[in-house]
């Protein structure tokens, strides 16, 4: 038999001015199961809380209802008070007499009656409340960071500096990502390599960071604090312990004309290669697709010239299993392949290039050593046209979203060009200039005012070649849509930033959600921007949405902070509002019939299966099982269950039906 205590709060006059609180307390006292009821001016004050604690002890209350303000305001306060008096905190509920009653109705009989109804409703629920205990989950204090661009580097360093172990997995032979390809960075024009490479070296030398390059995530199982990751280490065909990185193999490799990925196809590389001179680790890998030995079985020159005998042609992919407590996904972005925009002539004319290719041309370590030269004939272009929004904000052929970084890097490109080719002429076709950010607008102004970059507001309709010139036809919408024609030597397309080609597959491996463009989805667009819907997996950088470097670094540090918070405890404590599949005595064991409708409904992949065996170990029933570490307590599975075998603690069927019945039976 329940012994419920009902405590009606006046909230100063907030409640008592419109609700006859004395009558509510009286009416509550007459309800079945109510042992004690009273009213008080401020229930949340110290004397108010003391009154509750005292009554719990004196009357041996088994449940408490505080009828006051919204539970969203003071539920934790009163649950704590109950807990300190020895009553399980989940036996305490709040009836909302202020926001849902006294503040929204005038003083009347009906208002008091409603308050009585609200209290009675909750008495019905509390009768069926069960003591709940917060769920403890152990934590493995190692983080897995996927992706070694600036986001992954920043997250890894922050987590490692907080004293935790990090495994950083990068799919390419070197870390560095897109940032290592950039020439200079906006809005300060400092050299990208100069600020990035010290960080890359720090990662390689950090005692808490284990770096796995040329490796990819194969599988991820488990849940927050307890993930099991399988990493595929692709065969580098090199014994990394023996290799000193001297580079003799690279100079002697006969296959020299492979387009370099790092130089976006503008430079060449060998079959045994390091992607760029400052690579970390600075040890080569053999590209099996282009190596003569792998193709024809002959060559092995690298093996002959290697002074330490580090070449291993028979090396195979290796699978490594890791136990990690948290995952930071920092897989970055890609630039859109602009060939489907046939009007711009990309792929048809060599001198129509992408913004990323322009970065390589402008980079001191690039194929032209920083001189802006046309890919077709190596001449210095006299006139360059930049096309902003090549694929962005274009729902019909490209992506409907804004890629965010292009306005800034296009201004930067034009500026760099003007600095390098003083007599050059640069024109930018744009839709809008979006330069929101610290010192960003000033930067664009500088390009216009100091470096004389021409901005034309309008779109380019066609680019074609005539007498060795690229004729750019566009329109100036600020001049009554006047057609514009420019004879350019080079055209640079600010192509849209898109999700990586493998993003969808990776998201499915990790059970995180992704949007219509395959960017990974954050748990909440405002308040949980680094979390995913899977607890323990965090996002950093442009894999979530296009971002510039400062934003990426902030988010990466944010993700690292979230990991550090997670790792600050040996055990995780969670609200025990989770779903449970019932168990009963043999021969039924559970009313669950194993249809797994609940598993399909669960947004968190929290429902797995359990095999019930008899004493001989034979499987006699296959039923659903909720992983309390993953369950977030939405209860969608409960409404789905056809045999009513799954229920949710805190909002159980018993509680909710009793609540409905109490409400309607006065």
């Amino acid at each position, binding site marked *: 038999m329940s012994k419920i205590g009902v405590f009606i709060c006046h909230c100063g006059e907030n409640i008592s001015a419109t609700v006859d609180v004395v009558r509510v307390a009286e009416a509550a006292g007459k309800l079945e199961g109510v042992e004690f009821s009273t009213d008080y001016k401020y229930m949340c004050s110290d004397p108010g809380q003391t009154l509750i604690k005292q009554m719990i002890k004196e009357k041996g209350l088994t449940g408490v209802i505080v009828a006051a303000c*919204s*539970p*969203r305001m003071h539920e934790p306060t009163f649950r704590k008070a109950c807990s300190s008096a020895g009553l399980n905190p989940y036996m305490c509920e709040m009836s*909302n007499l*202020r*926001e*849902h009653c006294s*503040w*929204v*109705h*005038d003083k*009347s009989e*009906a*208002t008091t*009656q*409603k308050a009585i*109804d*609200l209290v009675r*409703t909750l008495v019905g629920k509390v009768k069926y409340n069960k003591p709940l205990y917060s769920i403890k989950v152990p934590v493995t204090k190692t983080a897995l960071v996927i992706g070694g661009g600036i986001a992954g580097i920043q997250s890894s360093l922050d987590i490692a500096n907080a004293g935790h172990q990090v495994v950083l997995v990068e799919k390419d032979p070197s870390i560095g990502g897109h940032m290592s390809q950039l020439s200079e960075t906006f809005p300060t024009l400092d050299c990208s390599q100069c600020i990035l490479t010290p960080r890359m070296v720090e990662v390689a030398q950090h005692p808490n960071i284990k770096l796995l390059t040329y490796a990819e995530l194969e599988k991820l199982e488990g849940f927050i604090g307890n993930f099991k990751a399988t990493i595929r280490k692709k065969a580098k065909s090199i014994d990394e312990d023996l290799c000193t990185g001297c580079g003799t193999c690279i100079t002697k490799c006969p296959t020299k004309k492979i387009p370099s990925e790092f130089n976006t196809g503008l430079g060449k590389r060998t079959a045994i290669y390091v992607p760029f001179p400052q690579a970390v680790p600075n040890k080569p890998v053999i590209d099996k697709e282009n190596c003569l030995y792998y193709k024809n079985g002959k060559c092995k020159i690298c093996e002959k010239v290697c002074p330490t005998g580090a070449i291993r042609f028979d090396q195979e992919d290796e699978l490594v299993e890791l136990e990690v407590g948290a995952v930071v996904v920092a897989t970055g972005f890609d630039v859109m392949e602009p060939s489907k925009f046939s009007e711009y002539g990309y792929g048809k004319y060599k001198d129509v290039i992408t913004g990323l290719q322009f970065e390589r041309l402008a980079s001191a370590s690039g194929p032209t050593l920083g001189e802006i030269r046309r890919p077709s004939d190596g001449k210095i272009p006299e006139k360059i046209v930049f096309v902003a929004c090549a694929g962005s904000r274009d729902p019909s052929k490209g992506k409907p979203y804004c890629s965010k970084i292009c306005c800034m890097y296009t201004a930067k490109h034009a500026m760099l060009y003007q600095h390098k080719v003083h007599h050059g002429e640069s024109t930018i076709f744009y839709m809008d200039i979006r330069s929101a950010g610290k010192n960003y607008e000033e930067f664009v102004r500088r390009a216009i005012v100091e470096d004389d970059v021409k901005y034309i507001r309008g779109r380019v309709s066609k680019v074609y070649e005539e007498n060795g010139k690229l004729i750019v036809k566009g329109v100036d919408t600020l001049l009554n849509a006047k057609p514009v024609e420019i004879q350019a030597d080079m055209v640079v397309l600010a192509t849209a930033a898109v999700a990586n080609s493998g993003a969808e597959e990776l998201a499915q491996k990790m059970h995180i*959600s992704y949007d219509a463009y395959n960017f990974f989805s954050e748990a909440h667009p405002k308040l949980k921007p680094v979390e995913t*819907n899977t607890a323990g997996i965090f996002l950093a950088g442009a894999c979530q949405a296009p971002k510039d470097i400062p934003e990426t670094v902030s988010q990466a540090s944010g993700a690292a902070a979230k990991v550090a918070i997670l790792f600050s405890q040996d055990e995780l404590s969670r609200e025990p*509002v989770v779903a449970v599949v019932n168990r009963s005595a043999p021969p039924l064991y559970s009313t669950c019939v194993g249809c797994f409708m609940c598993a399909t*409904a669960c*947004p*968190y992949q929290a429902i797995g299966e359990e095999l019930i065996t008899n004493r001989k170990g034979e499987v006699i029933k296959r039923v659903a099982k909720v992983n309390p570490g993953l369950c*977030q*307590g*939405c*209860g*969608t599975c*409960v*409404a*789905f269950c056809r045999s009513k075998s799954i229920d*949710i603690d*805190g*909002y159980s*069927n018993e509680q*909710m*039906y009793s*609540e*409905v*019945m109490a*409400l*309607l*039976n006065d």
Partner: protein
Amino acid sequence: MNEFEPKIVAFVCNWCTYAGADLTGTSRIKYAQNVKIIRFPCTGRIDFMLLLKSFGEGADGIIVSGCHPNDCHYTSGNFHARRRWIMFRGLLDMLGIDVRRIQYSWVSAAEGAKWADVVNTTVTAIRELGPYTDYAKVAGYLEKEANV
């Protein structure tokens, strides 16, 4: 004054509509006393058997309200609820319940004024429909049969 005062139960989710109704309170927007809220973690938790139970126990009308599509605290609970509602709506006629007795809506935590509006329009609509007595009649009929 003998106007019919309908009994209306509101099944709302904790994160959007409950918070929205809190905002109605903090904004001091007045509405009718007829609606009483029952708090759920998510509209996805709302089993339509609970709605039928409410009609069986004497409710004249019901409001179901949660987060707007795409705003669900649990990502997709409200989509499940919406899908379930579409199925359930088709069965109501067969069950002898006028579909207008159930108001399905989305009220976010920022829509305090909308909540008051939903409540008031529902109360007006149910008042026009009159009391729901079909289940009581069935119960009475069964009782009579048993006594014969």
